[in-house]
Structure formats: C-alpha cells, structure tokens
C-alpha cells in the first residue's frame, strides 16, 4: 500500500498557512569581507554535501557557482588598474588608483514574480507565507524546467536525488521565529534579514549615505521592479555593473514573451493546416 500512498499523497492539500509580513535579504556588498561563513552556515544547517574539491583559482572562489547542493556562493572580482612599473609605484602611483576587490554573496533572488515558480508544472515551487520562493522537496519530480527558466542561474537539479534544490530562505528557521543561518553567521552584517519594507528603507538610506561620502557608483539592484522584471526579495547593494558580478544587467522575465510565442505558433499551425487544403479538397 506504500505504492498507493506514493500515488495519492502528493494530491493531498493542507490548509494554507496564515500570510505573514514579507521577509527577504538585503545584502550590502560594500561590507562583505568574503569570509564565506554564509556558505558554510547554509551547508551546515541544511546538511548539504560538499560539491567536490577542485581548485578553480578564480580569485578566492573555488566553488564556482550556486547549485542544488550549494545555496550560497561568494564571488570575488579583482579590479586593479593596468600595472604601474615599480618605479611608478614607488613614486606614488599606487595611491592614485589603488584598485579594489569586490566580494558578493550570491543566493536565490526570491523574485516576487519568479520565472521558476511560473514554470513549475507540479506545483512544487510556491511562494511561502513569508513571500519567499520555496521548492517543496517531496513534490518536485526533477523536470528541470525551473532550471531552464531562471535568469540568474540559481537552481540546478541534484545528481544525488534528481530533484531541484535551492535556498529556502531557511523556511524552517523562519517558522520557528529564527533568522536564516547565513544572516546569522555573517560577521559584518553584509547579509541582513528582516521585513522587506524595512530592509528597503535601510538600504536606500545606506546608498544615500555612500553617495554623500563620494562613492557615486553604489546602487541597489532588485529593490524595485523594472519594466521587464519584478522586484527581488533578495536584493543587493552593488558597486559596479551587475554583469561584473555575474548578474544580468537587465533581467528579463521569459513570460513576457509567452503569449506572443503561442500566437505565432498557432498562426503557423493554422497556416500548416491551410497547406493541407489540396489534400482535403481532393476527391
């Protein structure tokens, strides 16, 4: 009867939980020290396996990217100017344009309108009562459509169990009134967690203050919707163009094209059927 259970159980629906104030992440990359405590805390809380021991030498990034078993990934971007000669350096050239090392902790963006959730045909991907995007691990059957749909390259399918996995925004911890593991571990509060409206206010204040200090390049990514994409419930304060960080410069929701594509396909279908006329009218 276990077989019957497996067939029937997924179709049971529980009572939907009470909606709660929306929560999310605000990550201020200007105070990130690249310590990767977030990566380790996430792995430890969720008991995820290591992804393998490969030295990529991508600056200090050896894990390469987000995956079904890596839900936090710290990126490093070394930006140093064309090298002065040592003589120039000794003469003070290093003070003029010292260069910088950008660091950023990548994670699922928990989009308000999430292409992965729009794609999912089993209903595994949902928005929780905290308005975070969550994969129900007992429902997902590994079709990988969400993987294809995500413009940020967040989700992948796990080779170990065949299902898609990603950051849950510590749904289990939130339900117990706790802060997600990564935010808890972050020593400089680069990763901040809380009510999304409060986080946005805080972030905007911070950007204003950075601009006052003369750091004109600081801006927020994902705090507000664009014409092609919704706002993100995991948004960032960045110091350079999004593509430098491996983020799409102008994220685009694929569903904006869907209707048009259906229409084109239908038209072609009708045209093809019209091409059948010689055959249909023959006697």
């Amino acid at each position, binding site marked *: 009867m276990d077989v019957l259970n497996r067939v029937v159980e997924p179709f049971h629906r529980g009572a939907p939980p009470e909606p709660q104030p929306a929560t999310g992440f605000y990550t201020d990359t200007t105070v990130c*020290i690249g310590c990767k405590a977030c990566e380790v805390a996430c792995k430890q809380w969720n008991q995820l396996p*290591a992804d393998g*021991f490969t*030295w990529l030498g991508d600056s200090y990034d050896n894990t390469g990217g987000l995956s079904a078993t890596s839900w936090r990934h710290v990126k490093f971007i070394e930006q140093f100017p064309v090298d002065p000669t040592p003589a120039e350096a000794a003469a003070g050239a290093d003070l003029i344009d010292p*260069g910088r090392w950008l*660091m950023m902790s990548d994670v699922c963006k928990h989009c308000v309108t999430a292409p992965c959730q729009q794609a999912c045909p089993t209903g595994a991907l949902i928005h929780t009562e905290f308005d975070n995007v969550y994969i129900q691990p007992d429902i997902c059957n590994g079709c990988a459509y969400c993987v294809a749909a995500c413009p940020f390259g967040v989700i992948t399918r796990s080779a170990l169990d065949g299902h898609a996995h990603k950051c849950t925004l510590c749904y289990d911890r939130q339900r117990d009134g706790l802060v997600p593991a990564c935010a808890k571990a972050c020593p400089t509060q680069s990763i901040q967690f809380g009510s999304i409206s409060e986080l946005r206010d805080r972030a905007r204040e911070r950007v204003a203050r950075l601009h006052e*200090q003369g750091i004109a390049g600081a801006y927020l990514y994902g705090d507000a919707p664009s014409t092609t994409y919704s706002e993100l419930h995991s948004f960032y304060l960045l110091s350079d163009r999004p593509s430098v960080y491996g983020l799409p410069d102008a994220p685009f929701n694929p569903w904006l094209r869907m209707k048009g594509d259906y229409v084109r396909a239908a038209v072609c279908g009708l045209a093809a059927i019209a091409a059948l006329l010689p055959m249909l009218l023959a006697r």
Partner: protein
Amino acid sequence: MPGLGASFGRGAATTYQQDLANSDCILFMGSNMAEAHPVGFRWPMKAKERGATLIHVDPRFTRTSALCDLHIGIRAGSDIAFLGGLVHYVLSHDRWFKEYVLHYTNAATILQEGFKDTEELGGLFSGYHGNRKTGTYDAREGRWGYVGTPAPEEHEEWRGATPMYQMLRHELGMHGHSIEQGAPCHSGPRHELMTMEGRRPVTDPTLQHPRCVYQILKRHFARYTPEFVSQVCGCSPEAMVRVAELLCANSGRDRTSAIVYALGWTQHTTGVQMIRTAGILQALLGNIGRPGGGIMAMRGHSTIQGSTDLATLYDALPGYLPQPCSDELHNNLESYVAHEGLATGYWANFRKFIVSLLKAWYGDAASWENDFRYSWLPRVDADYSHLPYFDRMAKGQVKGYFLFGQNPAGGAPNAGLHRAGLRKLDWLVVVDWFEIESAVFWKDDPTGPPPEQIGTEVFFLPAAAAPEKDGSLTNTQRLLQWHDKALDPPADCRSDAWILYNLGKRLKQLYAGSTEPRDQPLLQLTWDYEFDEHPRLPDGRRSRIEGEPDLEKVLMEINGFRLDDLDPRTGRPRLLREFSELEDDGTTACGCWIYSGVFPQPGRNRARERKRTGHPLEPEWGFAWPHNRRILYNRASADPEGRPWSERKKLIWWSEEQRRWVGLDEPDYDPNTRPDYEPPPGAQGMAAIAGTQPFIMKPDGVAWLYAPGGVRDGPLPVHYEPIESPVGNLLYPKQTGNPTVRTFEGPLNHLAHAPTTEYPVVATTFRLTEHYLSGPMSRFNSWLNELMPEMFVELSPELAAERGIVHGGWLTVRSARSSIAARAMVTRRLRPLLIEGRIVHQIGLPFHWAFAGEVVGANANDLTSIVADPNVSMHECKAFACQVAAGRLDGAAPSPTKSAAAWPTRDPVPDTPAAAQPEGMFGARNGRGD
C-alpha cells in the same frame, strides 16, 4: 607581549575589539583582521560606517585591504622602518599630544650618563657582548637606567649572581613572559634600572636636557625620513606621509586612533620591537587608555591569551610570575621576591601573588615554616621554550612528549626538523580530534623514512570537541567566557581535562605511601575536583562519562579563597571578590591572581554571564581581567586634573561629590586616589603611584617611550633586516640583523644569512579565513575543504612572467631548508617593490596544508627556519628568503589520509526551539514585523 608589557605594564591588548567602533582612524599592520578575525572585524566596519578611516599596511592586498580606505604595500620585515618613519614624522612636525606625553610618559625622564644609542655605535646599544651575529646586552653595563641608577661597580650585593644565573638571564629566552612581560637583560634586581632618588625619577619638564628621553628619541629616529622609509619598505614616501598625516589628524583631545596588529608583527626576530615602536607612536599621539584608541593585539587562538595567563609556558607561573630558576638568588622565597619584585606600582604586591599561588597548589602542606613549599616549585635550568626544545629533541635528547591539540609535525617553523625530532622520541602521546600529522608522521610523511626505521611509540588519545566539554576561553581582549558542555563526546573521546586529571590521579596512586622527599610535591598537590553530584547534560540526561573533573571547582581555585573564613552557605572557604584581598601570610589561596574576581560568590561564575545591558562596554558579558576592566590604563582617558580630554572621548573621570573615579569602565586605577595626590617620599607599592600616573604596573607610573628594562634587544626599537633577506641594512650597514637573536644552525636548520643572493625572493606566510593553522581543525571538514582545496602560492604577474609561471599552473619554492611545489595564484594583489633602487619580489604562502586530512598539500612550514628572538624565542616565519621556479617536484606527493564524508552526513537536523538563540543586530531589532 613583551613589547606591550615593556611599554605600558601588561603584555596584553590594551583595549577590546568592540571599542574599535569608536576609533576615528584604525591602522591595521602585521594583521589581516578581516580574514583572521572575521567576527571581530564587524567593529572596524562600524567605525567605517561612522566615518572612520581604515588603513592597511601589509605586503599583500588582502580581504582586509579590500575593506580599508588605503592600502600601502611594504616589504615583509620592514615594519620598524615604516613605524619609525611615523614616529619621526610625529616628532619632527611637532604633532605629539603634549599634555599627555609630558604627564603620562617618561619623555621627560633623564637617563644616566654613559648610555650610547645605535646611532653612535653603528647599530648597537652600549653594553653589548657578542659578535654582532648573536650576543646579549647587559643593561647595567650599558647604562640604560635612569639617572641615579648606581654604577655597576657600586652595587656589590647583586654581584653574587652565579654564572649560571647570569647566563640564564642574559642569554637564554627566559622570563620573557613574566611581570612586565619583558626579560630583564641584566642580573640585578628588576627595579634597579628605575631606581630613583626618593622613588621619583629625575625629569626635565622642558624636554631640553640632552639626556632626557624625548631628546634621545629624537636623535634615535632622526634618520627615519620618508625617503629612507621608501628605500627600505618599497612604498612611496608620499604613502608613508599620508598615513602619518591621517594618524596625526585623528589623535588628540577630540579624536583617537587605534592600531591593530597580529602575527604579522610578532613572528619576526624584531617582532617585540615592532610592537614597541607602535607603543611609542601611540603614546606620543596620546591614544593609550582612551576610547577608540589603544593597541589591539589580535591573538590568533581562541584561548591563547588564556594559555599565557595561566602560564602553560615553561618560564612563567600563572599570572605572569617568573618561574624560579636553579640559582642561589632564587633559593628561598624572600630572596626570590626581593630579586624579582618591584617596590612601587602594583607589582609591589608580588609576594601576595606567589604565596597565594603556593597555597592554592599545596594547600595545608604549605605554611610559613616551610616557606610555603616554595622549594617544591620546579626550577628552570635552561631554555625550554618550544624551538630550543625541539632542537634538543632532534639531537635525541628527549625521551617522551605529550601533545595536546598541537601539531608540530605540520605547523611548526621548520616542520622538517620537528618531524625529525618526533622520530627520535621513545614515546609520544597525541591528544586530538583527528589523526593529525603529528600522530601519523611515522607512516604518512612523504618526506620521511619508512616506519621500520622509526623507533617512536605513538599513542593516540581521541579528544572531545568544544561542545562536548565544559571550560572557559580567554580571548584576545582578556575576556573570559565560559562554555557549557552540550553533549557527551562519542565513544572513547575524552576532554583534555579528563585526561590530565585522571593521569594525575593515577600518578598519585602510583606513588602513594612514598616517603621520599622528591615524591612529596606530587603527593601533596591539591587535586580534588570531583563533581559533588554526577554531572547532567543541559537536557537533563545523566552524562555517561565517568571521572570528569568539575572545572568550575578549578575556576574557583583560580579565583581564590580566604582560607581562614568559611562561607556559611557552602561550608567551604569563602571565595575572594578581587585580588586586592590577597595576603602574603598564607591566609589566601589563589590559582591566578589576575583572574581573581571571576567567581566571587558561590554559584556566580562571571565568565558564564551573558547579560546584554545595552551599556556600550557590556560589562556583564563574561569577565575581563583584571577586575573586569575593558580598557587598560583608562586613567589616561582623563587629563591630569581628572576631567575627560573631551566630551566626545570621555571614559572615566574624577567625581568630587563621590570622591572616586566614575564613568563607563572599571577604573584601571585605585578608585579613591585623587588626581592631585602626590606620594610622600619613600612611599611603597600603590601608594607610590601619583594621581596623575595611569600606568600603575610601571614602577614610575608612566608609559615607557624608552624602556630601561624589560626588552632584551634594546631600550628602543631599531630597524634590522630579517635574518634571511636579500638586502642588507641600509640604516646600519655593519649590523644587518638583530644582534641578540639566537640561531640554531645545523644540518636540519640551514640559514641563508642576509644579504643573500641565492634566495632573492622575499617570502611571507599568511592565513586564509577558510582554514585554521596547519589544518587539524579544518582540513578534516568537507565544507571548509571545498572552499580552499589546494595549497597555492600568491605571486605578482611580473615575477610569474620572469619565471614562466602561469596562473593555475605549478611552481616550486625553494629555501635553505627544503623545497615545495604548489599551485600558482598569479595576482595583482602582490607587487614587486623598489628597494634601494632594485626590484625585489615577494610571494605569499598560506601555511594551512600538510600531509594528513581530507585534502592535503605541500607544507609552507617545511621552508621556514628556526631562529629565536631573544625575548620570547619567537621565530621569523613572516619574512624569510626563497627562490621560485616553474614546475613541480619529483617524488611522491601526499595523498589524503581520510576520505570525504558521505552524504547525508547525519540524521535530520532537529528542530530548534525558538527561545534558544537571541536574535537581532546588536541593539536593533531584526526580525519580522514587530
């Protein structure tokens, strides 16, 4: 530690990490704080948020540099030149904080005649015995003392020191950690050089006297100009001046600057003097004892401060008391106290500390009649610090060894020599979580002989992990924090305390009934720390471990008791409230006087307290020694009249109404001494400290710009080259390196003395956040291993191009000891430097890899050497010489000794009760909608 002790009186960080948030400017030098102390680094980040300027001076551009406003690249080992340049700038541009310096430092003190500075003797101070490569200073002969110090010939009674004692005091690294955390460099009594007329030194408040400290300082640093700094360090003169300007602009009444240092300073043969230079700088700028100021020594281990406090070192007793040595001068308690104590300042209570310690250890067996069993204390008769000890071991002179949570086979300097030493032992006991290099050196060392040729019998005792035992940790800001056991260790694993305690019990049983005098110290040692009731785990279950000692009883003994007064609540001797209650007549017992106050009442373990009160210093979180003072020398945060230097930087101040010192911190001072108190002539002890003297551990109550005693390689810092360096000493061409350094040259420890042409590349070692030390605590963990799986070496694109090395390819590094091969991380974060007109390259090596673990790799410490600074026998792993080439090495590479953990790693994570963790961002609420 001696650097800070000699400058200010205690060898410990003068402030606490959280206080960095109050700084207006922070200089990180010899430190990679963001990577090595990431949690503590939130405080400099807070300072930055408030507008502070952060400066990082370091050979490499690191994750710390990425968060700082300014990074200056310098040559590893040239720190004294840079800091000396800052001192020179402050003095020559007259930017020192005059009122502070005049009253709170010994700038005005006049030295005796006959002292000769390095400027006069080509790189040596007066009083030198040696051949410029190694040697010692005799401070009395060198006339280092204050005016009024008797000439050596006049002080006959102390000439009684035996040659052995003189050797011990002069030549070997003994007593580097005691009292002023400095090693006396003469065989007279400690206080001798500061002997003054009527107990006050002779001063010239106008600072014009040619032999006053201020003038000596000016002459000493006269040649540390920006151009000189540029030639030696490889940075531009403008860079150094910019740093100086920032520090000067952010010091004074209204603003304070802090200096943060770590092993990038300590691990040099001139490390102690680097810290001394910083001490001079901060004293001149008036930053010591003030909020947002001070020198934050970042110690690298969760309880290394605790390990020096409780004196796991051979030459000190708990609380920085010197271990007696086998000499007539230490024959009895009185002679020992007279010779080692100080007449003025808080150290005048020295006899109380030593007697109370003896009572704690020997209990009733210690009494007036038998000198409190002082003769039972082991005597030092040679240098038994780590490096000389292993040097002896490698020569076959050691039979057996215990290793508790240490990994010399992997992590010690010249690890090859250490492994050779382990191979010569008869037996070795290793206590650790995993089979670390030191436990498997006999079979898994790819550079070692086969097991058949090794005679060492190795015992491995599995250890409990931190959540599996009780105990306390004392962190870098002198804060004791107790941690409770959460669960039992698995299988046969036991805590270190269990192992030591039961070993002690069995040894006592073995010798029980003996009447031999030499067995009595062991038999009479107080050793009862049994639990009153069998211990339980936090969830109420009975612990399955039998024989665990009750460490709270140990902590209580450390805190101390009044033996003549029973507490009616417990029927046991009454616990001491603080160390001022200590007596020297045997009525008090105290295991470590500086910790006294941590357990003042039954049931009140202050190290366990975790109360968040909102007070910025959080005084009810843990216990900071001494006496829960968070900022040391905080009398200096107020002016000589007792008023804060400014409203913005107030900390403690004198209150006329309450007739005591009040404010935000515990006064590091007698709370009732008025600011206008003048000690009467002949005053002793604390009564000799005036109302305007914040540095109470110093006999003259002031910070020492010039240190007449306490630092074995000179009263002032001098730029010397590291022992292995590709360049000579530009400042003193005839004196390349530290003249008092000890080298242990031999077939296993070759040195390439400076200047070397065979090894033209400067090498330094560094840490990554992802791993810890030589790997025992991190390279057995998959989550950490995937972050940094392989050993690599960082080098500049220029050096890579010169040698044909590509990023991600292989390179070999060769030193006078050994060669290793590693992956190449070619990065712009390292630059070639222009030193004295020619290019010098630098490389960086992380030292986290060795041959045991889930991931393995080449060991940077196979390249480093054994040299020892004269004060604390510190090695020089942060600056040595090497050669770099492309390619790999022949021969076997190490392979992992432990397979990666299977997945899933354990049972599903249990639910966490909501009340279990306090949330929130230090003050602000941080959760969902309330």
